[in-house]
Each structure stands twice: as C-alpha cells, then as structure tokens.
C-alpha cells in the first residue's frame, strides 16, 4: 500500500509553509490529546460528586447508580489521561467508545440531536473521536510510540 497517493499540496502563499512545518505534524496528537483531556473533568465530577452530580447517569434509571457512576468516573478519568498521553491508546479508546455507545443508546438518543437538549450531537462527536483514535493508535507523539509497542 502506497503511503502517499498524492504529494502534500503546495502552499498558495509560500510563507505559510513555514507556519505549517512545525504545526502540521502535531495535528493528530493534538486531536488525541484533546479527546482524552475532555473526559478528565467528567471523571473527576463522577468520582467526587457521585452519580447525582451527572444528570445523564441519573437518567439511566438504575436502582443503585453509585457503583456505576464510580466505574464510569474511573474509566473517564484513567482512560482520559491515558488517551491524552497516548498510552495503550487503542484499548482505552475502545473502552471509552463502549461507554459512549451505552450512554448514547440508553440516554441521549431519546433527547434528539441537539446537544443543548442533551441529544446525541456531542456524545456522537466524542464517539467519533474515540473511533478515530482506535483506528490510528497513538501516532508520532505518544507514549505508545516512545515505548515502541502498541495494541
């Protein structure tokens, strides 16, 4: 499989290439880092405030939501940090994707599309980002690459 079917486009404004050179290689790592980092406050929220802190966990309608909130909070905090650092990128992305799928089909899908009514818009985005990390792995700037082995 050829890695470059087409060459990188030429910059219309040549000076722009000087700006692209340091930033373009960081693009994927930035996506992966932001995806992981955005889960961290949710993990902290569930672990410190319990199930009642997250109305979407309450919307699951569980008889005893506390242990579930604890498990989800732990997944979000630990996997969020690991995804941000690119450590075991694919397994943690898979775990977060499964959690998001459960939340989307158990809660958000009943609220429609728009994020500000609790719909699937935002969790679908996070799911897509986790799937992207599952496809791509850690990438160039990740602990997986530093270690030299990855799932």
């Amino acid at each position, binding site marked *: 499989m050829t890695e*470059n079917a087409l060459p*990188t*486009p030429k910059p219309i404004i040549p000076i722009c290439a000087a700006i692209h050179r340091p930033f373009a*290689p960081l693009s994927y790592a930035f*996506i992966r880092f932001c995806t992981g980092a955005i889960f961290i406050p949710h993990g902290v929220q569930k672990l410190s405030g319990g199930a009642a802190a997250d109305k979407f966990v309450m919307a699951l309608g569980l008889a005893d939501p506390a242990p579930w909130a604890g498990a989800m909070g732990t997944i979000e905090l630990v996997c969020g940090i690991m995804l941000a650092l690119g450590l075991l990128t694919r397994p943690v992305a898979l775990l977060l994707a499964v959690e998001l799928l459960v939340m989307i089909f158990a809660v958000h899908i009943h609220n429609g599309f728009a994020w500000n009514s*609790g719909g699937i818009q935002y969790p679908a985005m996070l799911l897509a980002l986790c799937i992207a990390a599952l496809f791509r792995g850690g990438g160039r700037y990740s602990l997986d690459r530093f270690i030299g082995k990855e799932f």
Partner: protein
Amino acid sequence: MTAIIDETCPSDGAKPIIPALAGFYRCAGPFSYAFVRIVTAALILPGGIEKLFYGGVYRIAAGNVVKAGFSEPLAWAWAVCILEFFGSLMLAAGLLTRPVAVAMAVEMAVITFRIHFGAGFFWADHGYEFALMLMLMCLAFAAGGGGRYSLDRLIGWEF
C-alpha cells in the same frame, strides 16, 4: 526544502502486540484524520441548515449574537449562518481546509467564551465543553490542513 511530516498519512508505527491486527491498522489508520474532519463538519452542518433554511439566522440575530456583544447583529448572524452551512460542507470536503477551519475556530471561540462560559464546563448544564471541543478540533484542522483525503490534496494547492 525538508518535507512537512504529514501525520494524516501515517507511514511508521509502533510494533503491534497482536501482529494479526497490523493489517487493520494499516488500512484504517489513514482514514482517521479525514474521519474526524468529516464528522466534525457533519455535526456543525445541521446548525447551518437550521439557520439558513428555518429562520435560525433571525433567531440568533435577536439572541446569541447580541449576547456575544456584537453590533450589527444581523450581519454577524448571516456570517455565522454562511460559515456554518458552506463552511462545514467545505470542511467535510477538505476544500480550503485551513482558512475555513480558522474561521470556524474563531466562531467557536466566541461561542465558548462569550455565550456558554458563564454556564460552566459541563454540557449537561449548557456549559462550554462542546463549543470548546469544536474549537480545538478546528484548530487541529487549521494545523493539519486537508490531509490525505481532501479536495485540497486532489487540487495540489492549499493555503
């Protein structure tokens, strides 16, 4: 001139612990960046459709644009409307990816800091995290450009 490392076209990888998965990674990996770009655009597009075809442009001109503190709210509302509709189509196709991504990042920054910031972080309370995430992704596209699967790459020129 040294070539720009294109992270959207992964050519090197860490050794997979499960070797059987290497083929899947080699096939799926290159689509990752385009997938993020297309999904991000697809999630912004319904907002553009609502503003352009369902009167949303007048709704935001009377609401959020004023709340964000802009004078000439109708002009800014149209700018937002056009950016969200045509901009998200261009972002999905990877056409003029960087200029569109920069414009959208600015829009999302305004939405984050001028509209939702007061409601806190969490989206359950109408906080800013979704707008922030869209802003960060647009910044990533501004850095990375169209990538391997984009009209920019097909055309051979980009900003």
